[in-house]
């Protein structure tokens, strides 16, 4: 297991090199001149040229690429063109908000998805099954920004129930603690609930369907019949044998979902003014803030690879048979 994990971690290097190159190429070929944007709407061409020179944007492409890789080799993601702060600082500032939202959303989604999927499988062909299937289809096909706005109108707005704050992360001046020299703030539960629920409802649709299908598949297996034959209670058969065996595809999906959301949930962050990574990535792309775009892509890739590794390692715990492989 340890060898496997180390091998996967070693693969991270080449993956990051390829992603770094692709990220650099992608932002390099985008139309629009970052120096022009930085110089303001009306600017003397001399000023634009000076800005271009300051940021090394006037160097030949290969030289720029060389500098970029050299910076990366020193674990330096550079400075943002726009707010002139280190990209690493900006990413670390926004990462906690994205992580908290992603973990909360996936946890909620797992709770809803597993519960509804299991209920649907047990009551296959009944109104419960039909309701879960219909509801999950609705969740899957609802645009996340629309769902977010509807939840705001229903639960936050002065015209709705007014139970939760409309947007934001928590009250101004809320205390923070320091980690690695950076102030970390946790959201207030009231602010976290609706964005997490928005993302969870969309993911829960897939999870419920996946859980239902996996449980139905496992319930047909011989070892389930054998367990029933040994006189085990239906709940023990379901909990100890069926659900555990059905978990692998569900955990894979939830893991990938977590990895994707940790990189920023752009639409949800926009609707709820959530200070996560998605918000800064969109802003960086619009402003052609190349170091921040490249740094964000690399951070997201690293996160994605690490979470998928954790998911893969969890298979061994869920299904001991896979440890041999």
């Amino acid at each position, binding site marked *: 297991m340890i060898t496997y994990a180390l091998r996967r971690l070693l693969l991270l290097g080449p993956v990051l090199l390829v992603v770094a190159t692709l990220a650099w190429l992608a932002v390099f070929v985008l139309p629009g*001149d970052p120096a022009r944007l930085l110089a303001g709407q009306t600017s003397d061409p001399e000023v634009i040229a000076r800005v271009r020179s300051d940021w090394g944007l006037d160097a030949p492409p290969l030289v720029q690429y060389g500098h970029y890789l050299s910076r990366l080799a020193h674990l330096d993601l550079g400075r943002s063109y726009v707010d002139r702060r280190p990209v690493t600082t900006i990413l670390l500032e926004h990462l906690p908000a994205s992580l908290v939202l992603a973990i909360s959303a996936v946890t909620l989604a797992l709770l809803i998805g597993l519960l509804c999927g299991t209920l649907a499988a047990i009551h296959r062909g009944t109104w419960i099954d039909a309701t879960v299937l219909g509801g999950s289809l609705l969740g899957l096909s609802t645009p996340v920004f629309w769902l977010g706005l509807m939840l705001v109108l229903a639960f936050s707005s002065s015209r709705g129930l007014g139970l939760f704050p409309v947007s934001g992360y928590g009250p101004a001046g809320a205390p923070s603690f320091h980690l690695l020299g950076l102030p970390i703030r946790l959201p207030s539960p009231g602010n976290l609930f609706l964005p997490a629920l928005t993302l969870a409802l969309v993911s829960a649709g897939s999870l419920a369907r996946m859980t239902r299908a996996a449980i139905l598949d496992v319930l047909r297996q011989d070892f389930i019949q054998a367990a029933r034959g040994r006189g085990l209670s239906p709940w023990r058969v379901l909990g100890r044998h069926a659900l555990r065996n059905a978990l692998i595809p569900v955990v894979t999906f939830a893991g990938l979902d977590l990895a994707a959301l940790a990189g920023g949930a752009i639409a949800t962050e926009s609707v709820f003014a959530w200070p996560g990574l998605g918000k800064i990535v969109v802003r960086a792309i619009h402003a052609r803030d190349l170091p921040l775009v490249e740094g964000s892509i690399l951070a997201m890739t690293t996160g994605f690879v690490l979470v998928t590794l954790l998911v893969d390692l969890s298979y061994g715990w869920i299904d001991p048979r896979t440890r041999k492989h």
Partner: protein
Amino acid sequence: MWRRTLALLILTTAAACAANTGNSDQTLRFRLREDPPTIDPAFVTDQVSAAVVRRLHAGLVDFDPETLAIIPRVAERWDISDDGTVYTFHIRKGVLFHNGREVTAEDAAWSLRRLVNPATRSQRAWILSPVRGATPFQKGEAEEVEGIIVEDPFTLRLELERPYAPFLGQLAMENASILPRETWGSPPADPGSPAYNIGCGPFHLVEWVHSNYMTVAAFDDYYDGRPTLDRIIFRFIGNLSTSLEEYRAGGLDVLDEIVSGQRQALREQVGDELRQWPQMAAYFFGFNHQVAPFKGNRALRQAINYAVDKEYICRVLQEGKDIPQTGVLPPGIPGYNPDLKGYPHNLEKAKQLMVEAGYPGGAGLAEIPMLYNTSENHQRLATQIQSDLAKIGVRVSLRNLDWASFLHAVEGNTKDHSETPFFRLGWFADYPDPDNFLYVLLHSDNWGPAGNNSLYSNPEFDRLVDEARSLTDMKDRIPLYRQAEKLAVEDAAWLFLYFYEDEALVKPYVRNFVLSPMGDQMAPLRNITLDFH
């Protein structure tokens, strides 16, 4: 017993509820669409940054938010020499920075030198280019700016190369704020930290939580008296629908932008809370005067101007916001000419002009690509223009691009000019002077990124503007600017569309909110009081 307990509980709850229904806290919650890209005065080129910097800092002079006249700020008065080249500023005594030190003429000189210093890399160094020796200093050819002279601790003299009328207006821009050299002389790792962002403005920075909010608090020792507000919380909310719900739910006291399509309904729902007032800004489409089909074809440009129904655009598409554009200078700016009629909607005249232009009914005229940067509003207007122009046979294809790609397409990458023929533009005044429109946007000195993206050129126009900017008395300048403006309108330099009106939702308990033609983000907030609410 249980009855008494229940009654007590009900009474306590009712009292708590009653206590919570009112609020006398003097904290204004103001929405900004995003984090300010910078709060360093030298780098401010956008309204969001300016909205914050204007609270934290003060310059020698300022604009009166309502009349737009230049008024004293840190300088209590100034003298201008008879030839208009020497400005002597008398610094007010007792003005303190947020760190408690008194502001001196040396600070003002240091701040202005910093702005123009090539090492600072300010995009707004041009503000001081009229000062003697500023350009050689900026190019690294001189070690000092000769024209910035400290006469004594409270007197600063600025000498210009030649008379330049808009100079005071430029000095009133936030970029020319006065900074304490002991903190700003050595930039820290975090340029957003409160310890670094010391100024002498009415508020001081307390906290900036990126992508979330920024808090500024009243500066007790502000020279003009402590602000009536205790603090302002700028909340960064990009989504307009969310912002509106936040305002409705009471999470914002002022909302500076309103989602399109909601104005009519809002007027009915909130009545006077929706404020609307003219702003010094214009929205127009640029013709590229150096490429076909607009090059040398005034009749075609005029025909397009007559064909587009600006009245309809303002009344229906903009839901009663904005004013049809009749000239270059918007209402409120000195020199605005209410007698200019522009190009009222007249299809017959447009068709006649198409014949004169050599394209009767559009025959022989190739489809014209029209560019705009991605936005729901721009798209709606572009579609309307396309439909109006089809009525005179002008076929237009629409292309939308994100802002960076749009600028690249409009300005091109050739040395001389771009090849993009027809494109959206807008302009918000940097300072209330006709020069900020006529010289920046239409003078041939400023072709391309410097402001004249239409590549308009008329030697007589240039001569009039050059003459106007060399005079110091606005009374003498205005007739020249008006003549120049008339020429640009006759030339149909742009497709004139509308002058912006600003708008904001302001809660009824917010008192003294100034409706400034410079825009809601530029208006001073320090005199605002919040009634018990």
